[in-house]
């Protein structure tokens, strides 16, 4: 009997936590933030696209140790990124245009300790240079700070979220440039 009650209470607690997680994923601060970084790469656009154009493979981004997902590059495709430190990021593809070499995805679940953001969405676009020999890769993000309520602590402020995403994009773009230009 006691065991049953204990289990029932545990069940309620799990539901309560699930409910909190759900609302936390939706609640957000008042000001959406923007980050836009781009990198010129000395390789044809098609070659850059060949590396980043598969939603199921984000191995080009340094902290990503593993990409697992479903539905390839279809709209609504999902992927789970496991980072080298053990962090997990769940993402969903919502736009994909191979001809225009661009796609957009959003984070469906991430701990703010991994990336201090809420309601994050992002777009990658490859643009060929005028002579066709090079390309520019642009990475644009839109997101709210990690703290969903008023008066955020410094580590979950608007500024902290911008700094983290900007750092991530710069690291990713530099690594990608190196990877492609070195031919690896």
């Amino acid at each position, binding site marked *: 009997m006691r065991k049953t009650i204990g289990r029932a209470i545990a069940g309620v607690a799990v539901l309560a936590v699930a409910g909190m997680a759900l609302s936390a994923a*939706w609640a957000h601060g008042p000001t*959406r933030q923007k980050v836009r970084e781009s990198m010129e790469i000395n390789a044809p656009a098609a070659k850059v696209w060949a590396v980043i154009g598969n939603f199921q493979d984000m191995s080009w981004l340094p902290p990503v140790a593993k990409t697992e997902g479903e539905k390839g590059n279809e709209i609504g495709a999902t992927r789970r990124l496991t980072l080298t430190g053990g962090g997990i990021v769940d993402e969903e593809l919502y736009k994909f245009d191979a001809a225009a070499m661009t796609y957009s995805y959003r984070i469906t679940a991430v701990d703010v300790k991994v990336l201090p953001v809420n309601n994050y969405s992002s777009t990658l676009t490859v643009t060929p240079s005028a002579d066709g020999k090079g390309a520019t890769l642009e990475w644009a993000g*839109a997101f709210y700070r990690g703290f969903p309520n*008023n008066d955020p602590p410094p580590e979950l402020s608007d500024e902290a979220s911008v700094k983290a995403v900007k750092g991530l994009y710069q690291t990713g773009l530099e690594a990608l440039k190196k990877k492609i230009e070195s031919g690896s």
Partner: protein
Amino acid sequence: MRVLALVLILAALAARIASASAEEAFVTNQLSDDLMVVDLATARSVATIPIGGKPAGVAVTADGRFAYVTSPDAKAVTVVDAATRQVAGRIEVGGGPLGIAVAPDGKTVYVADWYAAAVRVIDTASRSVTASIAVGASPSGLAVTGDGKLLLSADRDDDSVSVVDTATRERKAVIKVGTRPFGVTIDAEGKRAYTANVGSNDVSVIDIATGAEIARVPVGMRPYAVALTQGRGFVTDQYGGTVSVFDVATLKPVKRINVGDYPEGINATADGKRVIVACWESNTLDIIDATELKVIGEVKTGDGPRAFGAFLRRTE
């Protein structure tokens, strides 16, 4: 003589067309912390007014005298003299002011507190908060009926709309809608209201008198707000980068118009001919021809335009 008469008639006609479209947009540029004024006839920016506190919501009075702007980070509402483009006052409201609406007579301003289940009531004569109305969780968009008798609040985290009697300042009904309603718009007759449901990617159609949701119209991804004109609803789809158009009689989708990235605040002009859209990501104010259903103009804005609320002002 005849030629001169014709010229005069043409001139008068041209003046009438110009005055019919003499309207300005008051756009909150949240990331550049200001309010910009765009003359819609010439599609040019005519003023930029520093606001601070990350301005988001805006409500222009029906007589065009004032624009009230919410600054969630400053926990304040700024009063802007619309004609002189000067800040005329600042009202401390506390909490997280976001959505805002002004009564048709201009005497009362309603401000939604995003972090509390409350709408603050501002008396515009004394420029102070005089009352608070209990609504649902995370009130977002606000709208007042044309007769001033009802205030509607889109309570985002309760998936519902509160209907408030403005005389008693009490909630008289709660209407369940789609998931995470954000913007709410009432039609000119005060019969129906429309909410943009961010979570369920649709628009709820509400019959105000019966207090019931009567239909859902599917739109693009992450809808933000709704504008009404020429028998159609125009909905900004933030993630879609489109404006979804639907027929308000049949409630069927008509078209999706490509606009700038992350379209947010949307209003129809007083003459009903244009729909004006603030595109947050691309930093543009897009002008849509409401008949042709296409973008016919674009104005550069500051950074992160939101224009959440009734942001158009008639100058004639």
